[in-house]
């Protein structure tokens, strides 16, 4: 799985470079998020701008990351969702769980809200 890692102030941004997030690659995402949390990157932004398709396993991997970040006294937020991907969060009501930002840069200004 292609994931680009950058820093934005005190946030670590993981940009998923895959068009699909499904049962084939969701475990890899889950493991990558866990590794970042374990090494102390406890403020994570998941940039989903390249992801055009997500299934329930992809949603589950993100939820796992969100919960593990909370366990590490950290925070994991989502940014730049494509409309159909965002509609999956609405359908499963997970938009009530995650903080979702229109752009990665918006997290810096509102990520603690």
């Amino acid at each position, binding site marked *: 799985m292609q994931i680009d890692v950058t820093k934005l102030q005190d946030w670590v941004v993981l940009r998923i470079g895959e068009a699909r997030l499904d049962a*084939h690659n969701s475990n890899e995402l889950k493991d990558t998020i866990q590794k970042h949390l374990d090494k102390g990157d406890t403020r994570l932004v998941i940039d989903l701008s390249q992801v055009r398709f997500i299934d329930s*396993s992809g949603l589950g991997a993100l939820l796992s990351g969100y919960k593990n970040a909370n366990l590490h006294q950290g925070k994991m937020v989502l940014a730049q969702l494509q409309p159909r991907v965002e509609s999956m969060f609405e359908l*499963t009501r997970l938009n009530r769980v995650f903080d979702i930002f229109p752009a990665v840069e918006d997290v810096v200004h509102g990520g603690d809200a």
Partner: protein
Amino acid sequence: MTAPDDIQVDIIVPNQTRYLSLIGNIGEAIAKELDRYQGDRETLAYHLNLVLTEAMTNAIRHAHHQDASKTVRVRIHIDQDELCIEVYDQGQGFDLEDQSLPAPDTPVEHGRGLFLIRTLMDEVEYHRGEHANVLIMRKKLS
């Protein structure tokens, strides 16, 4: 019975998640060409990709327990009024009734696949057979 403008696709793939995108993308491509559909074809395309992906994942993980010697058969049939997807598995099957959406305030990581299939398709059935089980998902086109 098959009419001249019906579309039928019948595919067998190995019991591996790497084939999810192949099957999902076939469903998506078919929906985009489906000018008999009255609604938004782009949305239908995404939803077909999703239900095919979820149904195949169920077969691979819950019915076949990732057994690489098994295969998954997917049949898509479209006539004038209806689109029907059948996903066959050769395992012990799974419980179609276990499909309620986990509550958002106590979020669990699994259990949304069948909920999505139920929500996006008009009729969903699961039949257990002697040699294979089949998940049948139907959607009205008009």
